[in-house]
């Protein structure tokens, strides 16, 4: 196969966000296969720390696949193969010496549909810190739970019913509970796979506000189908199409003057 076929089409001069924020995740020459299907083709991308990076693109373009490769969620899919290098803080996460459970504690994930455990609100958040042994006693655990719920902007709404089931919350609250659960283990990176697509506009705005607050502390990567959401919350935008990273750049530029015609046509609603 000719190498040139799968070259990333356009890499503009270094995005400005990378000049101010250090690189957290560096992917180089990543290919992902599902059996015969070549889902990601020779992808290279640098993701900044303490910033929000958004992946956009039509369904089946590979954005979720790449997101899931970042915490090795694809390992669980039979026939899935990842080649190339993904470094987090300079450490190759596909190295055989890496403990995947530890890795997923460092790189948390929030899914499209809120999926709280069928347990109490408290237990949902306490679960991670407990199994990772992050709290030395009950008080420390309570501290972590309170802190995480506060950081997820959920505390005021649930502080009087911590021991009621998490599934009894509204969709937006459940999603914030899942975010609280993800940040309870003190991760470095939070991956979000369409975190607002099942939520109403107000709940969406709350999550977006939360994302903007969380980027102070974390490296956030979000896959979204909403162009406006990517434009609103992200610092860096990467556009995927047919398994190829077409364009990655500062969000401000991608949404006002994209360099690639395909990016332009997609974000302006001309194909998709």
């Amino acid at each position, binding site marked *: 196969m000719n190498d040139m076929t799968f070259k990333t089409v356009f890499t503009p001069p270094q995005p400005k966000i990378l000049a101010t924020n250090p690189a957290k995740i560096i992917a180089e020459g990543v290919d992902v296969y599902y059996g015969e299907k070549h889902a990601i083709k020779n992808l290279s991308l640098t993701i900044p720390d303490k910033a929000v990076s958004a992946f956009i693109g039509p369904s089946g373009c590979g954005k979720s696949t790449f997101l899931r490769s970042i915490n090795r969620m694809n390992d669980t899919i039979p026939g899935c193969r990842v080649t190339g290098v993904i470094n987090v803080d300079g450490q190759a996460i596909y190295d055989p010496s890496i403990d995947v459970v530890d890795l997923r504690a460092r790189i948390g994930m929030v899914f499209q549909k809120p999926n709280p455990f069928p347990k109490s609100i408290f237990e949902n958040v306490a679960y991670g810190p407990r199994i990772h042994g992050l709290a030395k006693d009950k008080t420390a655990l309570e501290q972590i739970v309170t802190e995480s719920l506060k950081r997820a902007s959920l505390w005021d709404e649930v502080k009087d019913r911590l021991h009621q089931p998490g599934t009894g919350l509204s969709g937006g609250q459940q999603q914030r509970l899942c975010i609280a659960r993800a940040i309870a283990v003190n991760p470095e990176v939070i991956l979000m796979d369409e975190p607002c697509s099942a939520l109403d506009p107000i709940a969406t705005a709350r999550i977006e506000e939360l994302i903007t607050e969380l980027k102070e502390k974390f490296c956030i990567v979000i896959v979204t189908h909403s162009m*406006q959401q990517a434009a609103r919350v992200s610092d860096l935008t990467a556009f995927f199409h047919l398994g190829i990273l077409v364009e990655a750049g500062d969000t401000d530029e991608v*949404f*006002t*003057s994209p360099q690639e015609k395909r990016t332009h046509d997609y974000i*302006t609603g001309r194909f998709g």
Partner: protein
Amino acid sequence: MSDHILKAYDDDLAQLKAMLSEMGGLAEEQLNHSMEALVRRDTRLAGQVIQADEKIDAMEIAVEEKAVLTIAKRQPLARDLRNIMVAIRIASDLERIGDLAKNVAKRSHAINDTLPRRLSAGLERMGQLSQAQLKMVLDAFAADDAEKAMEVWRHDEDIDALYNSIFRELLTYMMEDPRMISACTHLLFATKNIERIGDHATNIAENIYYLVHGKPLREERPKKDKTSITPFELKQD
């Protein structure tokens, strides 16, 4: 540019463009008529120009409303967004051109009664130049032609140069015969208005460049309007 998946979005943008070309046509007509009123000393035509200005004003408001509505409904991005921003700006330039043409018409009233001699041929020429600039920039806008827009942008200095020489010419008349001062001052303002119309045409050209290329034109425009730094010298014999 290929079509949007949502046809109604294309219709919105097409409508906006149609409104602007109608407005552009109107502004062109106003400029032509005001020049004709001035050159032919046609007071009746001048009156018509003054009347017709409110049509352009109303169209500017209509363009703005349409643009705001389109932003609200479609959340435009990239070139679509620039398209709408540029539409608002061009509408405001065209509205200003209308105002300036109206002002020329008003002054032609005053001049027609009092100016005894023929107007300077330079003024007529300047009117033609600005008419040509406006026409060309409107054509460039209709065709999304940034190259043509740049041509307009570069040629504005011709108008500026002519303005300079008319300025000096009128100064000389006034010095020769103080009874001419009133009419010549009106004429000077009319000339300045036409020069400003040229500037608005170049604004529109800059907007077309931005629309097409996605970045503002950063070069400094060549300028030959030196009247603001021309000292008023009385010759000592």
